[in-house]
Structures are given as C-alpha cells and as structure tokens.
C-alpha cells in the first residue's frame, strides 16, 4: 500500500449516462480531453468560546468537477445536457429546449504515471451540470467546450468520488475496472 507515484497529464476521459446505483450507459470517449479538475466541497463550521476556536466541524458534502474538451462533440454535449441530437448524412443537430432536464452522468478520467504503469483512475459516479456550459468561437483560437459539474453521493458502492491506482497500464472504463489491462 501507499504507492508513491508521480502523475502527469490527462490520457483519457469518458462519460456515461447514469441509470442507477452502479448502473451506467455505454461509456463514451470524451475526445480530445484537455482538463479534468476536482474540488472537494467541504462544509465547515466552528464553535468559538473563551476567545478561541473550541471545535471545528468539517464534512465533504460534494465534489465539483470541471472538464474541458478540445473537440466540439455534439454527442458529448447531448449526453451532458439532455438535449435532442439528430444526425444524418448532411449534419448533426443538437437542440436544447427549455423543458430539457439536465441528466445525471458519470465521469471518469485517467492520468499516466512516470513509471509507465501506475495509472491513476478517477471516477465521479453521479454528477450533473452545476455551472455554466462554456463555448467560445474566437478569431485565431480553438474552441474548447467546458462545463462544471457537481458530483453527489451515489450510494455505498461508489460514493461521490473514487480514485483507483492500478499497478499496470489499464484501460479506462465506467464503472472502473477491477483488474489491470484492457481486455
């Protein structure tokens, strides 16, 4: 235990629809993943008396997840927004209407280690867009869609966040694999 490994970069991100506790739709590759950042949301309070702090209350209540993608992928946007995606030979069309409900999704990411083996996999089993979904088209700049999610507690199986460090190079799956490798 206590694998001391160094990690760098973001090799892979996948998203899947959340169907129920430890039950997900087919994992979809988040093509050109640029960023997956996590912030534990901590609720805190303190009891003061006699001019000092007597007690500290701290509890992790949620996880904030930000992801950013290099590709403009309407299928990924559709999965995240609950819109309506239509595709034919001529176009893909994503329609977002006022009655669309933002769905819960699962997000997983993978970061490679310096020894070429110890993959770090991060899994947020149940989350929903909780901030603005950003998109910008600018002169001389790539467009990188980005969104902020809040991960909530799914239950006892996967909780609100799971980090798993494998001892060999391992494919990213939703839910996370329990064995190393890719098959």
């Amino acid at each position: 235990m206590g694998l001391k490994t160094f990690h760098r970069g973001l090799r892979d991100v996948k998203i899947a629809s959340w169907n129920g506790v430890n039950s997900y739709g087919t994992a979809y590759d988040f093509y050109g993943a640029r960023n997956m950042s996590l912030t534990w949301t901590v609720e805190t309070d303190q009891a003061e008396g006699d001019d000092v702090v007597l007690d500290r209350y701290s509890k992790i209540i949620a996880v904030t997840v930000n992801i950013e993608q290099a590709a403009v992928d309407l299928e990924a946007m559709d999965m995240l927004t609950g819109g309506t995606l239509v595709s034919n030979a001529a176009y893909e069309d994503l329609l977002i209407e006022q009655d669309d409900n933002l769905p819960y999704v699962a997000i997983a990411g993978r970061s490679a280690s310096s020894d070429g083996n110890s993959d770090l996999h991060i899994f947020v089993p149940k989350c929903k867009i909780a901030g603005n979904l950003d998109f910008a088209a600018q002169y001389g700049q790539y467009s990188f869609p980005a969104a902020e999610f809040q991960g909530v507690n799914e239950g006892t199986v996967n909780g609100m966040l799971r980090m798993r460090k494998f001892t060999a190079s391992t494919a990213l799956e939703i839910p996370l694999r329990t064995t190393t490798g890719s098959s």
Partner: protein
Amino acid sequence: MSREADFQTRMEADVTLMATLTGGVFISGELGREGITRTSAPTAFDSNGYLKPCALVRQRALTPDLQVVDQIEQVSSATQVIEIYVYQDSGYTSIDTALDRLYTLFFGYQFSDSFPLEWIGTLNRERDGGALDGASMARQEWLTIEVIGD
C-alpha cells in the same frame, strides 16, 4: 540502456517502418562524430555506394525541469529531447513514409520509465550538410519527461 537506444529498439521492432528504412536505424552513441558514413555504417549503403533510406537517433541532454523534486529520496523530474534524423539519397518519398510511421509509433507512447511522449515538431525537406553531403534529410523531435530516482 540510453533513451536513444529505447527509440532504436522500438523502431527496429516495427516491420512496417523497417520496410521503409532498409538502410537501418542507428544511434549517435554508436557512431563517430560524423554520423552515418560508409565506414561507420556500411549497411546503410547499397552495393553501388548509394545511401539507402535510414535513420539516426540522437539524444540531447537530460535536463531537470524542477517540477518534481525530493532531496531526501533523490528524486527529480527531467526532460530530454530525442531527435530522429531520417535520410535517403534523393527525393523525399521514403522519408515522408517513415515520418508518418514514426508519428504513429511514438505519439503518446510510454516507455517503462517515462510519461507519454510528446511530439515537438518535424523539420522536413532538408539536406544533410555533413558527411552525407547533400542527401535528403528530415528531423523529427520528441520530448521525453521522466522522474529520475522514483
């Protein structure tokens, strides 16, 4: 094993690449200061003395990047640029084919002691100004990032 030898091993193991680089893959540590010559690498030349498509891998200095440092554990992260020179006698057909294959072989590839490789760039349509005297040349550069001592 040196990093340039790591590259050489992966290149020589790829049948598709070696079908193009019929003259072989060499590393700077095994050649003299003039690189590929008829003396240092005779297999790179055909029976008429013309240069066959071939490659020379050369590693630059290993440089600490100060991103990861632990003085007690003697751990330090470092970067190193690897240059792959691809040659042919004239024209660039084989060079272009080899460059495409090298990109496939190394983009995101991870050695057992490194992070995934990063492509720095490709300089093509060059001519060798050294011992190969005007032979067609291209250079592809890769960045390796590793943690020494972990």
